[in-house]
């Protein structure tokens, strides 16, 4: 009985981790998933609160997924941490893989309160920006602070690790496999043996679809964060879960309401195996007492007890369940200070004063957001940096920002056309964003969601500067925003900024390398306008009717 419960828990952990991986991996262009790929992120109450508070509205897709987790915790304590959380399972698996057992409970650092201080600081960064409102905020900028939740939220962290670290590695291997099979497929041997060619064809086709080289800058920072979390297991098992995780802190607090209790019978021989086995150090040196807010209901203690003295009951057992958080008021105030700093300091980094506003604000020329992205202030607050949008982008065009938007925009998605363009018929990034920092959008709307404007550098452009027969940018443009100007019998590209949405197809196709001769800049970014207003601007440009090569006559 007791062992079976542990087996059940392990099966649950593996099943949820598998579900996480499958949901993460399945989403692709033209592949429909019945379950939202961002389900785990939506189910995270911290992300739900952050997303809704920072955008000041109820997002039902978050509410419906987060409520079950809260209810589960109210009923069964931190069962989410022990049975569901893919971050916890990943840590368990890796600790098992590397044989990390932590230090003896008496020697392990006692830092369990830290996660509550972190939670307090993070909640402050969510709530304070939303509370402050000024006239200017009502229009363009909706918030003045910065939600720091992305930094330490486990779902965001793990999804980000999968997206920016694991995914490129997997794609590197599929790419290698694809290269190998391509080489074999073109060999004389295969050409001579029809059956072999026939057998290889589906594999080649499949790999051709799947194997797409993916590259993310800054992947190494994300990797180091995750590696640090794992490395802390040297001090204590699940160091992250017991000491740092803000979601664990929240669920532990909620789980105080749970009626579940561990009961230790008189048969206990004080062998201390349960104390040593407990992953989160919830059982102190007396096996008859444990901390309710720490217990993740993994029931390892039940399984290892040699005399089967531990059982699970509801209601009053003789066992002492200690539900105190034991927080220190001075420390809480310190945490609040750190929260305010985390919220404000990124905003006062190398800022510059914009002519149009009185506030210092960093704004990079290459800060090009995906279509559907909210206005910048609101976007950086709502974005939890989970990386889902970057993961699903079929052109690998969305990359984590580094300096483009200042520190506050660190690791948020930006479009880097030199890596890839925003493919016109794709709407994936808007469909996977859990907090709607990228609002869902349609293919039709993309023709007036202005991300930026392409500009031709006439000193680099080979048509302008060296009279070459090149209008690749005009060819590639999805929105007929580039026309040709006929000078001395040769067409030279010109951009109509009312039609150009800044998708970057021109920049990615431009044959001038390494510095392209046509570049998208954030200049034409119109996210501060509503979609209706943006559509009106597009309508002013009229129907596409130009293009040099008019029928029946030479261009010009």
């Amino acid at each position: 009985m007791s062992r079976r419960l542990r087996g059940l828990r392990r099966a649950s952990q593996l099943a949820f981790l598998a579900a996480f991986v499958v949901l993460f991996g399945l989403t692709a262009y033209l592949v429909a998933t019945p379950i939202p790929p961002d389900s785990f992120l939506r189910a995270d109450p911290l992300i739900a609160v952050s997303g809704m508070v920072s955008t000041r509205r109820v997002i039902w897709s978050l509410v419906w997924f987060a409520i079950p987790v809260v209810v589960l915790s109210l009923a069964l304590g931190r069962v989410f941490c022990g049975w569901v959380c893919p971050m916890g399972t990943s840590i368990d698996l890796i600790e098992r893989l590397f044989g990390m057992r932590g230090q003896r409970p008496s020697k392990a650092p006692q830092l369990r309160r830290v996660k509550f201080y972190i939670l307090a600081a993070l909640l402050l960064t969510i709530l304070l920006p939303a509370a402050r409102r000024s006239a200017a905020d009502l229009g363009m900028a909706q918030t003045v602070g910065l939600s720091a939740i992305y930094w330490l939220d486990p779902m965001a962290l793990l999804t980000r690790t999968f997206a920016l670290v694991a995914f490129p590695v997997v794609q590197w291997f599929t790419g290698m496999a694809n290269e190998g099979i391509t080489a074999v497929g073109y060999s004389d041997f295969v050409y001579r043996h029809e059956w072999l060619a026939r057998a290889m064809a589906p594999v080649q086709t499949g790999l051709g679809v799947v194997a797409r080289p993916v590259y993310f800058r800054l992947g190494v920072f994300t990797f180091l964060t995750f590696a640090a979390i794992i490395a802390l297991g040297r001090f204590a098992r699940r160091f992250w879960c017991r000491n740092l995780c803000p979601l664990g802190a929240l669920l532990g607090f909620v789980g105080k309401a749970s009626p579940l209790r561990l009961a230790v019978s008189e048969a206990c021989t004080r062998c201390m195996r349960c104390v040593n086995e407990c992953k989160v150090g919830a059982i102190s040196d007396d096996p008859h007492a444990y901390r309710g807010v720490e217990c993740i209901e993994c029931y390892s203690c039940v399984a290892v007890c040699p005399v089967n003295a531990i059982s699970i009951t509801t209601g009053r057992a003789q066992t002492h369940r200690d539900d105190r958080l034991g927080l220190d008021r001075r420390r809480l105030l310190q945490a609040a200070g750190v929260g305010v700093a985390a919220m404000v300091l990124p905003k006062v980094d190398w800022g510059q004063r914009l002519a149009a506003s009185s506030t210092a604000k960093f704004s990079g020329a290459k800060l090009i957001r995906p279509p559907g992205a909210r206005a910048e202030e609101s976007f950086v607050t709502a974005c939890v940096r989970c990386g889902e949008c970057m993961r699903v982008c079929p052109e690998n065009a969305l990359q984590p920002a580094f300096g483009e938007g200042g520190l506050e925009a660190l690791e948020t998605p930006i479009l880097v056309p030199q890596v890839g363009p925003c493919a016109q018929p794709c709407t994936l990034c808007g469909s996977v964003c859990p907090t709607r920092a990228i609002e869902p959008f349609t293919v039709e709307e993309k023709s007036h969601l202005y991300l930026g404007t392409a500009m031709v550098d006439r000193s680099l452009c080979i048509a302008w500067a060296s009279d070459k027969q090149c209008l690749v940018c005009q060819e590639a443009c999805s929105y007929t925003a580039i026309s040709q100007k006929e000078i001395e019998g040769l067409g030279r590209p010109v951009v109509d900024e009312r039609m150009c949405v800044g998708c970057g197809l021109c920049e990615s196709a431009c044959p001038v390398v390494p510095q392209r001769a046509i570049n998208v800049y954030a200049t034409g970014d119109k996210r501060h306008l509503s979609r209706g207003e943006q559509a009106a601007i597009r309508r002013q440009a009229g129907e596409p009717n130009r293009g040099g090569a008019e029928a029946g006559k030479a261009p010009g």
Partner: protein
Amino acid sequence: MTREEISRRDFLRRAAAAGLAAYGMGELAGMDGAAEAAGPPTIAVASKKSPAQLVQAAVNALGGMKQFVKPGNIVLIKPNAAWARMPEQAANTNPEVVAEVVRLCKAAGAREVKVMDHAIDLDTAAFKMSGIQEAAQKAGARVISARTQSMYQQVKLPRGKVLKSADVQRDFMRANVVINLPIAKVHGSTKVTLGSKNLMGVVWDRGWWHQSASLDQCIADFAAQFRPKLTILDAVRTLLTNGPKGPGKVGTPGVVVAGVDPVAVDAYGATLLHFKPEDIGHIRLAFASGIGEMRLDRIKVKNV
């Protein structure tokens, strides 16, 4: 003049044969224009039918697909599937035309039919939206997106005036029969895009062509060395403005043109877009290099 023309052509054919030997047997097998009889080139122009019937009529007028595809051959069809556009927008080859060509090759006994392009838009989107992937697969072809460099091999072009070497798609190089299957569109850089311009889609480093001394010459150089066995031009719909991607004005000539002489097909195709063949740089240069006929009065047109 005419005699000179023919003798030059013969000379070049021998040069091509020598080149073939240099590359090893089979390497250029799919690019063989020598099947053409002496005298003025013949092209077939089919009209007033459904797309599939247009293809049948045009190919039958040239003697049927058996003239070009032998049993056991590997056939490579190069449509234009570069853009994430719908068939009605006339940016890609008509999917019904592609499917019918695949069926004809299969019926002629082809061992394998490959439909290949190197899309400029996101390939999955282009293949899906153009309808070509579904239509070609249903007809029994293997659809290949040539989007990694390992699918290309470097080839020297000894006769090239500007284009001396290119990374050419391997399936294209190794096929027994290459059928070029362009759609007729206007084009920003080259005024029109027809057969020879469509072959730019089998080249990896095509961006360099724009930077070279002359894009038109590169197209002509490539066409001079790689001559498909058959060119079938889809002019069921034509794109008349904002080419090559559109959206623009779509014409509906309802025509399919087929021919062995790639320059003759292109020359006739230019007229469907209301251009004169001699106004198009790459057609003029291809003609000048002796690979085909562009003078309309010397092309035999079979209307069917």
